[in-house]
Structures are given as C-alpha cells and as structure tokens.
C-alpha cells in the first residue's frame, strides 16, 4: 500500500515536470476520431449546414414569424357586385280583388284560356268568365247571384239576395222585368251588365263581378307608403283600363289621377291641392334589388329601364348622398344585371410576394412563408419520430434475433418477411381513407401517421442489426466476454450495442430523408397532414390545381426546394457519417 502511494506520488510529480509520452500523445476516443473525420468531409459539412438552417428555419422561424400558421389574411376591396336584376315582363301578373278567391291553380287554367282566346274557363266546378279589356289586359269574372224574379199569374216580382247586400233600384227592376219577359240573357241597368238565367216561372239574375286582373304591367310605387294603394285591385284595374283605352285621367275613391308618358312607361300621378304628386310608374320591365335591405326608388328604376331600353351598358346615377355612382348593365337573354362597385372584405388569396408576405399567400389566404416554417416542424418531427420508432423496434427485434439465434431468429426473420410483404402504399392509402371517413382530428392524424410509418418501416433496420450482431457475436472479443464471465445484459449493452451503433446512426440518418419524402408524398396525395396544419408535402399539394401550378409558383416551388435540400442534407450527413465510421478510411 505504501509502495503504491509513493508510486502514484512519483507519477504525478513526474507528470508536472516532464513532457513525457503520456502528455505528448493526444488520446482520441473512437467517437472523437469519427467526429474529426466527419468534420474533414466538405460534403458532410455542407449537409450539416443545410440541416442546421432547416432546423432553425422550422423551429425558430415559427417564433419570429409575426403570423400564425392558420391565420387567414383579408383585405378590403371594391368589387363589382350585383346590385339589381331586371327582367322584361313576359308573364301575366295577377292582381286579385280584396276578399275574392282566385286560387293559384286557377291561374294556370286562366293562362291556357287566354292563349286559346276563350271567354270562360272552368276550374274546380266553378266557371269563371274571361274578358279581354285590351292588349295583354284581362279580367276574370265570377258570376254572383244578386236577385231572383218570380212571375206568378202574370204578376212579376223581384227580390234581392240578401247576402250580397244588393239593392233593387227602380231602373234595375224595370230592366230585369223587360229582359225576363223578352227572354233575353243579358240586360243593362245602372250602367252594369247583368245576366239572366231563365227558369220558366222564376229566373235568377247574376251580376258578373271582376275578381282578378291579369296584365304584364309592373307597378313601382314612388313612396313606400303608396305600396298599399298600388297593389290594390281597384287601382290597378283603373290604371289598366285607362291605359288600354288611351285615357289620361281617371278617378278612384274621389281622387283624380293623371297618366303621363308612353304606354310602356306610364307615370301615374294624383291631383291634390292643385298640384300633382307621382304615385307610381307602370312599365313592362321588372326591376328588383339583389339584397333585401336595398329599396330601389321608382325614379331610379325608371332610369334603369330607360337605359335598358336604350341598350346602354353603363350609366351614372346620383344617389341620396349626392355621390355619382357608376353602374354597369350586363344582359343575359331577357335578364339584365345591374352591377356597381361595392366595398367588401375578401380573403387575400394568391397574393404575390410582398414585404408583408415574403412568399405571398396561398389559396386559403394564409402566409406561405409561415406555413413553410410550421410545416417544416411537422415534416422534420415526423421524420425524427418515425426514425426513432423504427430504430427502437429494429434494435429490439433485430438484437433479440441476432443474439439468441436459433428458432427465435427464424421466427423473427419470418415475421420480418411477412412485414415486407405488406404493400406499403395501398395500406397507407386505406388507412388515410379510413381516417378521412372517421374525420379524425388533424393532430391525432399526424400521430397515427407516425405510428403507421414506424410500424411499416422497422424491418430493414432489424435486418441490419441482426446481421451485425450475428457477425459480432462470433468475434473473439464476444467470446472473451463470455470467458471472463461478464453478464449478458452488459455483454449486449456495453459490447454489442456500441459496435452496432455506427451502422445504425448511418442507417437512421439515411432513412430520415426517405421518411420525409414519404410523408411529403402522402401529404401530397392528401393522406397525410391535413388542413389547417401544414407540412411541406401538403403545401405542394396546391400544385394539383393547374391554375395554381402555372400561375402561382411561390406557393409550391419553395416547399419543393425545402424538401429537396433537407433530404439532400440528410443524405450528405449520412454519407459523411458512413465514411467517418469506416475504419479503413485514413484518419
């Protein structure tokens, strides 16, 4: 013991005084040697630099980017918006007298009767009379029994049907008696035509009342308060009658109205207090606003109609605030669309690169640069997790297979063969479709993708590990560990694993590139990472649209370049590691 102490003391003093072999020769562990050799390989360093840049871009870039990966950019833009739609009025419009019944289905019969020139038609066991008042103006009458007559022994009596509120005037009574006795079917009294249904001793007198009006005119009130009036049967009937008869005035409800303008563009005004106030315009063109909240004034409608008739495509109109607004008219068949510039908030799609968006925006209005950063995270992370998973399964199964050999080896290797028989793309596509169908959360999807890729990819690593361990197991130094009685776990982890490691590192680095490509392929096919998450592959997916591919290079080219560079980087580093681990290479 004392001797040893003096020896160590000797050694230490020796060491401080003299530059002996111990200090002169630098000791390099195999790891350091590999590192030195690696650093001497220019290509490997290039690869390493590429990878460092990629990692910084992906993992740090996201922190510096002012945007979020799924942030949608919008901007205000003036776009031509549909403002109003105009149609030439070609169908009959029906105005029904208040309180009367004229079912919708009867209108079809009415249209048929009009086209056939009939004077009456039947619908639902009810006969309606049809009177043409003028061109494209028809009234529909329904016979209403107003009075009954009775001739008893030459004595003529007449009584009104009480329900109708009809009163028998002297003129009516005289005219009715004359008509019944003359067996006439019609007579006129008080300026009204009545029909008589002779039944021998007693007859019924009917008064045909107009219950509906069919015309092609469009009524546009000047004030919203006048809408009630302009929609009423009496008003429309009066206007139409006046119009077809060429009259310029008519009176209704003790008010006098004046018609002015042409037949297809009439202005109806009411005479009040010595002046005239416009009530509505009557035309053959229907103008309706495209939004519910817009009220188009009759004046404005008249101007639109005027422009349509003049076949104009552009016109200007001063709106209520006094601003001059441009309008455009587009014609499709008999429909005219009036458009005007409207300010609205739109998604900034396919914005070319600017200072705000260095690589522009994509079809969803998201910043391409930011999505590349976040996408890189996912692409690289998928690569690493999958490789770790693959390597773990590969080491465990390959290690067991190689170390224990025998039937265990055979069983595991046949299992590997089995896995190699699974067609990769069909399986992944099926799983992708199933996930689509189940609408799995995009983040969960990534984990499932990682697991699937890892479970399908471990076989090659298992083979490599097994082969390596089989050859190492027979080496003398492994026999020596047995001869020196070192326990099995230590033999595996201190002797076998460190010797397999170099090969594994190379294999894993090389397969990283492959997995990034696979992930990109799957995402490109729409089976991998899904919106709103991004990966480089799913960003390139935009290029499936020919329009995007040909016009917006900045969306998909950068992602492609990143994938190429990263895979190249991994392959360079992998090659460099392989060369560095190769002991035959010069130091």
């Amino acid at each position, binding site marked *: 013991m004392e001797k*040893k102490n003096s*020896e*160590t003391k000797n*050694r230490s003093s020796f060491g401080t005084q003299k530059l002996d*072999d*111990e200090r002169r020769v630098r*000791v*390099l*562990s*195999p790891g350091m040697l590999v590192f030195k050799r690696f650093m001497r390989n220019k290509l490997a360093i290039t690869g390493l630099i590429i990878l460092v840049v990629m990692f910084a871009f992906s993992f740090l870039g996201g922190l510096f980017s002012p945007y979020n990966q799924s942030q949608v950019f919008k901007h205000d833009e003036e776009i031509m918006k549909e403002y109003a739609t105009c149609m030439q009025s070609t169908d009959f419009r029906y105005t029904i007298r208040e309180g009367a019944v004229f079912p919708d289905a009867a209108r079809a019969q009415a249209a048929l009767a009009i086209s056939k020139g009939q004077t009456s038609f039947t619908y639902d066991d009810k006969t309606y009379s049809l009177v043409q008042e003028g061109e494209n103006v028809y009234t529909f009458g329904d016979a209403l029994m107003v009075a009954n007559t009775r001739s008893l022994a030459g004595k003529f009596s007449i009584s009104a049907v009480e329900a109708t509120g009809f009163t028998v005037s002297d003129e009516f009574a005289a005219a009715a008696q004359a008509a019944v006795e003359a067996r006439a079917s019609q007579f006129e009294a008080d300026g009204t035509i009545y029909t008589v249904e002779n039944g021998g001793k007693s007859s019924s007198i009917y008064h045909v009342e107009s219950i509906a009006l069919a015309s092609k005119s469009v009524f546009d009130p000047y004030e919203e308060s006048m809408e009630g009036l302009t929609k009423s049967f009496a008003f429309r009937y009066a206007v139409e009658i006046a119009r077809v008869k060429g009259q310029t005035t008519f009176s209704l409800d003790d008010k006098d109205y004046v018609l002015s303008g042409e037949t297809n563009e009439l202005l109806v005004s009411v005479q009040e207090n010595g002046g005239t106030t416009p009530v509505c315009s009557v035309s053959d063109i229907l103008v309706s606003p495209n939004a519910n909240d817009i009220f188009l004034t009759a004046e404005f409608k008249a101007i639109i109609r005027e422009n349509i008739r003049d076949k104009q495509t552009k016109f200007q109109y001063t709106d209520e605030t006094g601003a001059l607004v441009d309008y455009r008219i587009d014609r499709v068949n008999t429909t005219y669309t009036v458009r005007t510039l409207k300010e609205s908030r739109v998604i900034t799609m396919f914005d070319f690169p600017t200072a705000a968006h260095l690589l522009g925006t994509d079809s969803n209005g998201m910043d391409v640069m930011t999505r590349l950063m976040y996408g890189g995270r996912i692409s690289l992370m998928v690569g690493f997790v999958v490789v770790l998973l693959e390597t773990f399964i590969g080491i465990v199964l390959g290690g067991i297979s190689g170390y224990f050999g025998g039937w265990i080896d055979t069983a595991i290797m046949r299992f590997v063969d089995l896995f190699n028989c699974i067609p990769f793309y069909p399986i992944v596509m099926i799983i992708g479709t199933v996930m689509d169908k189940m609408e799995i959360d995009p983040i969960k999807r990534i984990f499932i993708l990682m697991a699937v890729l890892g479970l399908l990819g471990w076989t090659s690593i298992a083979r490599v590990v097994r082969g390596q361990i089989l050859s190492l197991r027979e*080496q*003398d*130094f492994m*026999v*020596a*560990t*047995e*001869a*020196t*009685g*070192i*326990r099995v776990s*230590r033999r595996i982890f*201190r*002797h076998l694993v*460190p*010797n397999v*490691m170099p090969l594994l590192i190379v294999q894993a680095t090389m397969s990283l590139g492959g997995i990034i490509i696979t992930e990109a392929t799957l995402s490109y096919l729409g089976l991998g990472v899904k919106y709103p998450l991004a990966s480089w592959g799913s960003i390139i997916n935009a290029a499936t649209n020919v329009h995007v591919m040909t016009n917006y290079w900045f969306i998909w080219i950068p992602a492609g370049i990143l994938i190429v560079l990263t895979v190249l980087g991994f392959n360079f580093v992998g090659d460099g590691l392989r060369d560095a681990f190769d*002991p035959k290479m010069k130091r």
Partner: protein
Amino acid sequence: MNDDIVIEVKDLKKYYPIKAGMFGRVVGQVRAVDGVSFRIRRGMTMGLVGESGCGKTTVGKTLLRLNDKTSGSVLFKGQEIFDLSHNELRKIRPQLQIIFQDPYSSLSPRMPVGEIIGEAVREHKLVPEREFDDYITKIMRACGLQPYHKDRYPHEFSGGQRQRICIARALALNPDFIVCDEPVSALDVSIQAQIINLLEDLQKEFGLTYLFISHDLSVVEHISDTVGVMYLGDMVEYGTKKDIFAKPMHPYTQALFSAIPMPDPTVKMNRIILEGSIPSPANPPSGCKFHTRCRECMEICKTEVPKRYEAGNDHFVVCHLYGK
C-alpha cells in the same frame, strides 16, 4: 497428488452436426474432437500441436465450456465443469482464462484499454473499488504496458501490444489456468519472443498453468513441459517435451518434427513429406485415421483402430507399430 492436477480431460468429444434439408435433419457429424484425454499439473505448460483443422482450438474452447461438449468430462481442480449451473460457472470463470490467436478481433474496438482489462475485475469484484486503478496499473506494468495506455483505444496499438492487452485482461482475473490459443501465430518473430518470454515470466510469478495450443513446434519446444500431438480430433501421442522431441514414436509426430527448420544450413534435413491433405473430419478414414498418409501403413491400420501404447514415463502413443 490429486490437488496438483489443475485440469483433467477425460475422453472429451465434440461433434458438430451437419444439417441438411428444410427441417435441419442431421445427416452427419464433424468429429472435431474425438476422444481426447490429458491432465495438466499445477504450474506446468502443456503444448498441443497438430496441423490446421485437427481440433486443437476446439479442445481449448470446449474445456473452458465456451462450446458444449458431446461427451466426456472436464475436471477443473476435481470439479466437473459441465455440471455447473450458469451462475456457478460465472463464479469460476475468472480462474479459467483464454488468450486468442487474433489480437485484432479479440478486443472490443469501442472500449478504452483500461476498461477492457478492468471490466471483468469490476464485474467479479475481485478488488475493492478504491484499489481498482492501482490494481489495473500493476497488471498493465506486469504485462509490459504503460499506465497511460489505459485511456487509449485498441486501434492505437500494434499487434504485440494488443496481445499484451489480451494477456493483461486474462491475468487481471488472477486465473489458475490459461488456454493460450496460438497466441503468437499472428505476430512477427521478434514480438513472438517477447510474448513467449512474458508468458513464461508470468507463469513463474503467478504460478499459472497453461494449455499452449500451437502449430509452431519450436515455440512449443521452448515453452512446454508436456506435449500432446493431435491428428484429426485424436490425440495420437503424448509425453514430456524431452521424450517427444528426443524420440517421437508416432509416424505423424515424426513427420511433423522433421519439418522443424534447422538454423544450421550445413545440417542436411531429413524431411518426411506427408502426401495428400488432411481427410475430412466429417468422414474420417476407417481404422487408424492416419493410415491414408502414413508411410508405415500396414493392412491392420486400414481396418482396426489402434490402441494406446504406454511407453513409460507418462508417454503414450496410439499406433499399431507398437505393442505387438
């Protein structure tokens, strides 16, 4: 007397099955070791000679139970090695060591030398942890290595230095018995001498017992106390070094010894040339296995297996020429 015998091998056989077909049916056996018996006393060195493929290394590995045996027994200090459980075997492992032929493949390339030498010492807790460093230093010095080599890796050493590391690894466990499996055949002559001398010095210092396997007769002559000659899995002659080298009895031994190069060019060498090559151990010749190449071959040799002939002084030979 019995305590004096460190290793006793009795009729040791090691056959390797030849498998064929889809289900690995055993169609034959390679008789690598076919009934070998010998004993080695404490502090002695037994040389095992024979041409390549005659089963020398298999004997060495099997008697350390690095291979399974087919039959026979190996007694280490009277204890049957093949009866031990794995745990018991692990406990006596340090006492039985081996030095390999190839110093390049027998050191783990990713471990520093100090670790290689000390790993098993720590594993078996042979020395207290605080004396560990000094102990390794001592062993390394004894094997002609410098303490500063401890942190280096095997690739930084020459073949001779590596073999010293292997010896140090075996020695560090304080063994009683070391199988030296052609420890110098991969080294050049000057280094061979160093290693042989080292082994001899260590034997004296630590009282080691060696089984020295070699095909180099001059080395065996130098280091051995007794010599066994093997041919095709059989031990054909055994005796003390003196007896065997002075008076080789078996025709194979005679042929073998006639091939030892003489340093004196004036002496005419009377070499016995063996014709043909060594037959396959999977299909050995009938009768005496050597009869196909023996120049003294008689009719009886082709049919009958020769019996052991004791020539006295623990010298025996297996040949029909003797004992009639």
